[in-house]
């Protein structure tokens, strides 16, 4: 399969409200897809449908061997629990090794011996070891987002789903996070699907963009899809945005 994800005629309803209607698109392996849309257009719902966490109509087909790393926007977690970044990463890593073992009869290190995987991942996302050894409540917003990305990476994914990964992070921090994701994508040949409100980020990082709005759905490269008319239609106000040729 050339595409890592094929979605056809996907619809999601909550009670009487239709959140997503007859959505069809595909994602080439190694590409990055930005999902854009006004509030309540169903961006997070789309992600939840893609991982099978909610019931839907239509088909969502991931290529065989797909492992998803999910970085949610909203966490169930209270930040005051006495659990360290390492505790979380070790738990996630142990599950990943268990899965790999049952799939491939133990071609990976057993849990507990693979702190090396965790430390390497922490280095990759730029969270210092000392910070990871602290309870998660002590981390800054940016560090915590990095930790969540590390958490997703420990499962050795080939697809990352990022739901507004830079929300609540200051501007320089956002820049660094976006660069981090791009670097990871290149180094690890990941396919990335990300939800964003930032048009500049979409222009810079996305190979394709999927626009969700009540009226219509469109998909294509950012420069062809994101016309002033469409932005006006999606957000209701003219967006003052200029594309600079690099």
């Amino acid at each position, binding site marked *: 399969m050339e595409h890592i994800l094929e979605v056809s005629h996907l619809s999601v309803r909550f009670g009487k409200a239709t959140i997503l209607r007859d959505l069809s698109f595909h994602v080439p392996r190694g590409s990055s897809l930005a999902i854009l849309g006004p509030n309540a257009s169903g961006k997070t719902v789309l*992600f*939840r449908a893609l*991982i*099978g*966490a909610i019931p839907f109509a239509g088909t969502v087909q991931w290529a065989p061997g797909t492992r*998803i*790393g*999910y970085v*949610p926007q*909203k*966490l*169930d*977690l*209270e930040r*005051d*629990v*006495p*659990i*360290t970044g*390492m*505790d*979380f990463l*070790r*738990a*996630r890593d*142990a*599950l*990943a090794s268990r*899965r790999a073992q049952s799939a491939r009869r133990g071609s990976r290190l057993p*849990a507990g011996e693979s702190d090396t995987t965790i430390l390497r991942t922490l280095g990759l996302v730029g969270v210092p070891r000392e910070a990871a*050894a*602290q*309870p998660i*409540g*002590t981390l800054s917003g940016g560090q915590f987002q990095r930790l*969540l990305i590390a*958490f*997703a990476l420990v*499962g050795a*994914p080939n697809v990352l*789903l990022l739901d507004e990964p830079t929300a609540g992070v200051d501007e320089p921090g956002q820049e660094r996070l976006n660069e981090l994701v791009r670097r990871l994508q290149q180094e690890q040949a990941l396919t990335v699907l990300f939800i964003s409100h930032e048009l500049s980020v979409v222009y810079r990082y996305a190979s394709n963009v999927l626009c969700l709005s009540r009226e219509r759905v469109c998909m294509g490269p950012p420069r062809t899809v994101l016309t002033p008319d469409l932005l006006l239609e999606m957000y209701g106000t003219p967006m003052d945005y200029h594309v600079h040729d690099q």
Partner: protein
Amino acid sequence: MTNDALVLSVAMAVAAGLVGCFAVMRRMALAGDALSHVALPGIGVALALQIHPIFGAAAMLFFGALLVWALEERARLATETTIGVVFSAALAIGSMTTSGEDLIEALFGGAGELTWTEIVFGLTAAIAVVVFIVRQRNSLIVMLVSPEVARTAGINVRRLNLLYLQMFALTIALGLRYLGVLLMGALIIIPAATAKRVATNLSGMLITAVGVAVLATVVGGHLASRLHRETGPLIVTVAAGCFVLSLLRRQS
């Protein structure tokens, strides 16, 4: 306390400490505390049918856990209201089906002779709970982050939630003999709440919660027999004392 009683109560406390940690971190302290109330009608019916009350209690707790599980799938607010209504109603109905000495013992726990049935049930259940928490520790931790993340990690979230709630219910059943319907929830929640304040990592939290639960059970049980009082209230008072002490520590 006899040796049997000591071993059994320590086993119960270990289970309560471990289960409580995840209850507190999952913010289900209230639901967990109230869940114990459903045991009362079960005890009443069991006494009427002349079977061991523990089995009536366990059966009702099983259904109570199933109810919490089904509700948790829906909105959280609805869960809280329903728990408030259903579990209080269970307490009211249970109080009518049980009476006199039996009622007091069911509500606060009692010190009567231990039967073999109880010892075997208690130890088996305690071991089951401890094994469950130890084996599912990683999945439970990942599930704390978010159910979606847990899904992508290959966890069957619904099934694990149900299993956890059943283990919680089993822990309550274990402690009814010593703490009764009204107070058993407290032995699960208070040590874990204490540990949450004091600990700085996961192992620290689990060990502290178990330590506080065992300490409260042993010291409380000992005081109860010295002072000729019911065990349950003393155990919970000792645990609450530990919690108050933990408040002295400034939280980072």
